[in-house]
C-alpha cells in the first residue's frame, strides 16, 4: 500500500519521444486506470514504473522514495501481463511460489502464502495443474495469484483482459474490482477499453501521444471532459461532434449556428470563443431529446436503427454529418425515413478548432 509520484517523466528512443513529460500523483490504495488508444504510451509508462524500461528523464517515487534506478524486484511492485507470462513447465503452485524461493522464504511459509492466494482466487482445485491445462480466465487468475503471493505495495496490470473473450472479460473485471476491495492495495491498470476504465477506476488517466489529456474520476471525465479527445474517447457510443460557427456573443453566452442543419442556432452558457470562429458542438447520444423539448431541433435522415430491447441506437445523418442517437423504449424509427430530435444547451459541449474545451 503505497503512493506513487511521477514528476516530468520522459522516455525517448533515439530521437523519438514517446512519453513527453508526465506529472501524476497516485494516492495509496487508489485504483488508477491508464487509458488511451494504441500507441499512446500507456504501456510504456507502466513498464517504466515497473522498471522494465529505463526512465530517460524525470523522477519516479514509490512510497516517497526515488525509484528510477532501483531494480524492478526491489520496487515493491508486482505485475500481471497481457500474455499471463506463466512459466509453462511449472504447476500453478510452483508458478505462484517460484519467486519466493529466491527471497529466502521458508518452504512452509511459501506453501501457506500460495494457499492463501489460491483461496482468494478460488484456485485451490487447480494448484497441481500445468498452465496448458487451464483456460484463459484461469491462467489470468494464476497470474494475479502469482502477484498477490509477493504481497506487493503496488499492483501493475498491463491489459490483463485483452486475451479473453467478451463474457469472461466481464467476469474477470468484476473479479478484479472485488480483489481491489479485499486487498486494499494501490493498483495501476492499463487498458485501451474505456468500459474497463469506467467500471474499475477510482481515477482515470487519459493518455494520448505520450501526454496526459485529463485525470479524474470516471464520471467527472464523462460529465466534464477537458477537450474533444477525452469527450470522444470516454463514453459509448462515442459523443457526436457537429460542425458549428460562433455567430453572436451575449450575456447569456455564446450563440452558434449549425451549417449542416440549415443554420439552426443555439446559445450555450459558455464565455469562450469569438464571433466567426469555427467550433465543434459535442452532444452525447443519450442527450438528444424529443422535438421541441430542447433549445434547437434537428431533422435527420435515418441510415440504420439498432433495437437492443431497452435501448435503441439510431444512426442518422444531415449534410453528410453522421450522428448516433440513443432512444429508450422506442422501436419504430426504422420505419420512418427522418427523425427530429432536440438539443439542450445545458447538455452540450463546445470545443474550439484545436479541440480544447470552451467554457
Amino acid at each position, binding site marked *: 500500500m503505497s503512493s506513487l509520484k511521477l514528476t516530468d517523466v520522459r522516455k525517448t528512443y533515439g530521437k523519438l519521444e514517446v512519453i513527453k513529460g508526465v506529472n501524476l500523483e497516485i494516492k495509496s490504495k487508489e485504483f488508477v486506470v491508464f487509458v488511451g488508444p494504441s500507441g499512446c504510451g500507456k504501456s510504456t509508462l507502466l513498464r517504466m514504473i*515497473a*522498471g*522494465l524500461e529505463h526512465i530517460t528523464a524525470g523522477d519516479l517515487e514509490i512510497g516517497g522514495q526515488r525509484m528510477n534506478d532501483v*531494480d*524492478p*524486484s*526491489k520496487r515493491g*511492485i*508486482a*505485475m500481471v*501481463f*497481457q*500474455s499471463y*507470462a*506463466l*512459466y*509453462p*513447465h511449472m*504447476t500453478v503452485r510452483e508458478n505462484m511460489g*517460484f*519467486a519466493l524461493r*529466491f*527471497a529466502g522464504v521458508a518452504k512452509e511459509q511459501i506453501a501457506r502464502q500460495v494457499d492463501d492466494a489460491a483461496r482468494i482466487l478460488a484456485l485451490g482445485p487447480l494448484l497441481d495443474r*500445468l498452465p496448458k491445462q487451464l483456460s484463459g480466465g484461469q491462467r489470468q487468475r494464476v497470474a494475479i495469484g*502469482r502477484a498477490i503471493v*509477493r504481497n506487493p505495495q503496488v499492483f501493475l496490470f498491463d491489459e490483463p483482459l485483452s486475451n479473453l473473450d467478451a463474457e469472461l472479460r466481464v467476469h474477470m473485471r468484476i473479479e478484479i474490482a472485488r480483489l481491489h476491495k479485499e486487498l486494499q492495495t494501490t493498483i495501476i491498470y492499463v487498458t485501451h477499453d474505456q468500459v474497463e476504465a469506467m467500471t474499475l477506476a477510482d481515477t482515470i488517466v487519459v493518455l494520448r501521444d505520450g501526454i496526459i489529456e485529463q485525470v479524474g474520476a470516471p464520471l467527472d471525465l464523462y460529465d466534464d471532459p477537458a477537450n474533444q479527445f477525452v469527450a470522444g474517447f470516454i463514453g459509448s457510443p462515442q459523443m457526436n461532434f457537429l460542425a458549428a460557427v460562433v455567430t453572436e456573443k451575449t450575456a447569456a453566452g455564446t450563440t452558434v449556428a449549425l451549417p449542416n442543419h440549415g443554420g439552426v442556432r443555439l446559445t450555450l452558457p459558455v464565455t469562450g470563443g469569438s464571433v466567426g470562429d469555427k467550433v465543434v458542438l459535442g452532444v452525447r447520444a443519450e442527450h438528444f431529446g424529443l422535438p421541441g423539448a430542447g433549445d434547437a431541433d434537428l431533422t435527420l435522415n435515418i441510415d440504420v436503427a439498432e433495437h437492443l430491447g431497452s435501448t435503441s441506437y439510431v444512426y442518422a445523418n444531415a449534410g453528410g454529418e453522421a450522428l448516433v442517437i440513443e432512444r429508450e423504449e422506442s422501436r419504430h424509427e426504422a420505419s420512418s425515413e427522418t427523425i427530429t430530435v432536440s438539443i439542450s444547451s445545458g447538455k452540450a459541449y463546445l470545443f474550439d478548432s484545436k479541440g480544447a474545451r470552451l467554457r
Partner: protein
Amino acid sequence: MAQARLDRRENITGWVFIAPALILLGLFMIYPIVWSLWMSFQVGKGMNLSFGGFANILRLTKDPVFLRALGNTFTFFIFQVPIMIVLALLFAVALNDSTLKFRGFFRTAIFLPCATSLIAYSTVFKSMFAIDGVVNQTLMQLHLIGEPISWLGDPFWAKVLIIMAITWRWTGYNMIFYLAALQNIDRSIYEAARIDGVPAWARFRYLTIPMLKPVILFTTVISTIGTLQLFDEVANFTAGTGGPSDSTLTLSLYIYNLTFKFMPSFGYSATVSWVIVVLVGILSFLQFLIARDRRTS
C-alpha cells in the same frame, strides 16, 4: 460395388504416385540395410564369404583394435557432446540478448564453421596445430607451455585436438536450434521473473533450460549420432590411420579400414557397423528416458 471399384482405383493411383520414391528408397536404402545385416553374419576375406553365425560377434570381443576404437569413440562422445551442448547453449543465450552489439556478425561467425569445406578447415587446423604452428608459438610466447605440444603425435593431445575441431565445427550449428527456440519464448516470462526478483542464474537454470528441454534433447541425440559416426576429422588429421598408435581411431574409421584398406572383410565390417546402430539406439533411448517429463508420464 461401384464405390469399391472406385476406391481400388484411387488406391492404385496413389501407389503409382509414390512408387518411384519407394523403389529408389527400397533399392538404395532398405535393401542395403537388410543386406548388411545378412553380411554381418558372413565370415571370410574378399568375395570368399561363408555363413559364420555369431563368429563375427565373438571376434569383436577379442579384437583389441575394435575395443580400442570403441573406447576412443566413447571418449569423444562423453567429452565432446556435453562440452558442445553447453557452449552452444551459452552462445545462444548471449546472442539472444537484444542489447548486444554486432549480434548478426557474431551469429554468422559462430555458425560459419559448419558451412565451411571439410578439407579446407582440416588443412588449416593441421597447419595451426603443427609443432611449429601458430598455436604452439602463441602458447609459448604467453609462457603457458615450456616446449611445443605435439598435437598430432601425442595420444592424449591428438584426442584433445579432435574434440576441439569437431566442437569448433558443430557448436554454431546447435546454437541455431537454441536461438530459434529462445526467440519463441514469450519475453514477458523473463520480465515477470525479473520483477519477481528471480536472479539471472536462476532464470537460466529454472526457466531457460526447462523451456528448451525438447530442443536440448533433439540436439543431444543428433550430436550423439554424429559423434558415434565420427570419421571426417580423424581421417583427415591422421591421414586415415587413426594414429598415433590407434589413439584416435573411431568405429567409422575402423569400418572404412576393414573394408577398403586392409584385406577386405565385408562381413566383419558390417558387424562393426551394426554395433554403431545398436549404440545409437541404446543411447538415444537412454536420453529420451532421462528427458522424459515425469509429470505427464
